[in-house]
């Protein structure tokens, strides 16, 4: 393998090296020194992110099984940044005495899952795609049950592993049917005709993938798993693994299933309406903030489908831009929930009453994140949603657009409920003032900067759009 080929696959090589370093550190280090692993892992994650931004080589490897191009590298970089933020947020949690001798496992499994994400985005063959998908989910199922002594955590792990195994079985059945019809599994030379067997294969394939993105009616596992898992794992699930599944869905729909576009537009039309509405309606009645964000992220997935349905370079650009914004906003919200949960053990909306009085900075971050998720004008989330709506309007689905706007109003209501709790409601026993650690602060600052910059600095969207047009 020449240096050139090495450079093409550098995201994955870097991650494999990082994972091996952590594994060896775990085996070789004495228990007393395990606390240093936190710093090591954060530094390594930063190195991976920086490596990803170096000038790139593009091309395909293994006879077309592995493909990279500028757009895929952008997707990988977005998700790598997300993982860096999550790792920064985990440091203080993993320094506790309960976990510090197992902390390297957390990082190891996170990086293993990230390897899967990268391979999945770069896949040029269904086998590679399947391997990436499984490598993304299996370590996360183990992480969901990371809190050994909490039965909720084990429960979340079980629900995640069983539903993901079930969904990948369905997806594989779809792939096998597509293989029967086309005799070929390379994305490159995949030619689909609109016959009944291809429709069947596509429906199975889409259902399997919809489980991972948690589109209604395949969303039932989401809330329980999000609530039971440790908060950093929840943020990984809702941002990285969902984001990677959405990216690969976009790639697959726009290249592979291009010829049956009318079919998948119909499917997406129905599912996006259902997903937005049901996600929003259930989000209103949640008290637990993690469950609340679970349902709100289901609703966000419905909004993302609006961009996918456009089926053009514009639609693709809006989806990727929205995901970029979503990574920063959602991780900021989860970061606040986690640091508050860590300091006080409180997690419901009522507990947040009067948070502004005691912890003004955290409340401001949370407010920015929620406003961005809701789509309130000067923030990035507004432009994300606005572009998605333009994409729908351009493709002429006006009924869908109306429903989406109504749903935005509903979502505004419940996001503002949390903001109201923090700023206006009074509380006799508010969460006491506390200081979060440096790593958490750095990650929250990056999130806030991300929310502001991606919103105010318009070349970001232009850049993504140019990449999509050349894809």
């Amino acid at each position: 393998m020449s240096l050139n080929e090495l450079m093409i696959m550098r995201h994955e090589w870097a991650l494999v090296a990082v994972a091996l370093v952590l594994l060896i550190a775990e085996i070789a280090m004495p228990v007393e020194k395990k606390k240093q692993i936190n710093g090591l892992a954060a530094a390594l994650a930063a190195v991976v992110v920086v490596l990803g931004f170096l000038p790139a080589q593009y091309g395909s490897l293994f006879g077309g099984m592995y493909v990279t191009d500028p757009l895929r590298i952008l997707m990988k970089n977005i998700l790598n940044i997300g993982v860096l933020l999550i790792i920064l947020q985990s440091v203080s949690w993993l320094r506790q005495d309960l976990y510090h001798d197992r902390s390297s496992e957390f990082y190891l499994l996170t990086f293993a899952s990230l390897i899967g994400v990268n391979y999945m985005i770069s896949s040029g063959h269904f086998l590679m795609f399947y391997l990436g998908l499984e490598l993304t989910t299996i370590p996360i199922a183990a992480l969901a049950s990371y809190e050994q002594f909490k039965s909720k955590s084990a429960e979340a792990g079980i629900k995640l592993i069983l539903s993901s195994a079930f969904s990948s079985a369905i997806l594989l059945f779809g792939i096998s049917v597509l293989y029967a019809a086309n005799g070929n599994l390379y994305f490159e030379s995949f030619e689909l005709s609109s016959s009944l067997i291809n429709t069947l294969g596509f429906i199975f394939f889409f259902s399997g993938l919809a489980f991972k993105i948690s589109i209604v009616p395949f969303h039932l596992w989401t809330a329980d798993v999000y609530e039971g898992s440790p908060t950093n794992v929840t943020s990984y699930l809702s941002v990285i693994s969902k984001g990677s599944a959405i990216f690969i869905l976009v790639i697959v729909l726009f290249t592979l299933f291009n010829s049956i576009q009318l079919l998948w537009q119909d499917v997406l039309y129905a599912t996006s309406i259902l997903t937005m509405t049901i996600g929003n309606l259930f989000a209103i009645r949640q008290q637990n903030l993690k469950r609340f964000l679970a349902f709100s992220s289901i609703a966000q997935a419905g909004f993302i489908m609006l961009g996918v349905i456009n089926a053009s370079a514009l639609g693709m650009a809006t989806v990727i831009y929205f995901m970029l914004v979503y990574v920063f906003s959602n991780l900021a919200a989860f970061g606040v929930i986690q640091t508050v949960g860590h300091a006080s053990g409180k997690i419901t909306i009522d507990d947040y009453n009067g948070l502004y009085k005691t912890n003004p900075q955290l409340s401001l971050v949370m407010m920015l994140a929620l406003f961005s998720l809701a789509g309130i004008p000067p923030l990035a989330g507004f432009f994300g949603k606005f572009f998605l709506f333009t994409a729908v309007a351009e493709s002429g689905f006006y009924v869908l657009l109306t429903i989406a706007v109504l749903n935005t109003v509903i979502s505004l209501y419940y996001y503002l409920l949390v903001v109201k709790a923090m700023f206006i409601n009074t509380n006799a026993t508010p969460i006491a003032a506390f200081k979060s650690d440096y790593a958490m602060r750095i990650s929250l600052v990056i999130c806030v900067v991300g929310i502001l910059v991606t919103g105010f600095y318009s070349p970001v969207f232009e850049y993504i759009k140019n990449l999509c047009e050349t894809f």
Partner: protein
Amino acid sequence: MMEHVPIAHVLMVTSTMFFIGAYGFLTRRNLVTMLIGVELMLNAVNINFVIFDRYVYPDQIEGHFFALFIIAIAAAEAAVAIAIFINLYRNIRSIDVEEVDKMKY
């Protein structure tokens, strides 16, 4: 001998197997049995891939390799799932799904 069996018969077996597995997954109450249901589904897919290679595209081996990888990944999945089951059992002394209900709407 093999060629005497029409492909339709094999496909009937695999799709029956697949849906029996799905039915088992959705109705059983024991977690291990649910896992067995999923394995049944995966094995149906394995047979599908091998059969399509054998009958429809005899000059290819992509399907065979897909089946090999599915076997390996199913094993990894089962290992993780059973490890989590053991963890749950240590917490609540049962692996009945009806008791896995700490979180509800």
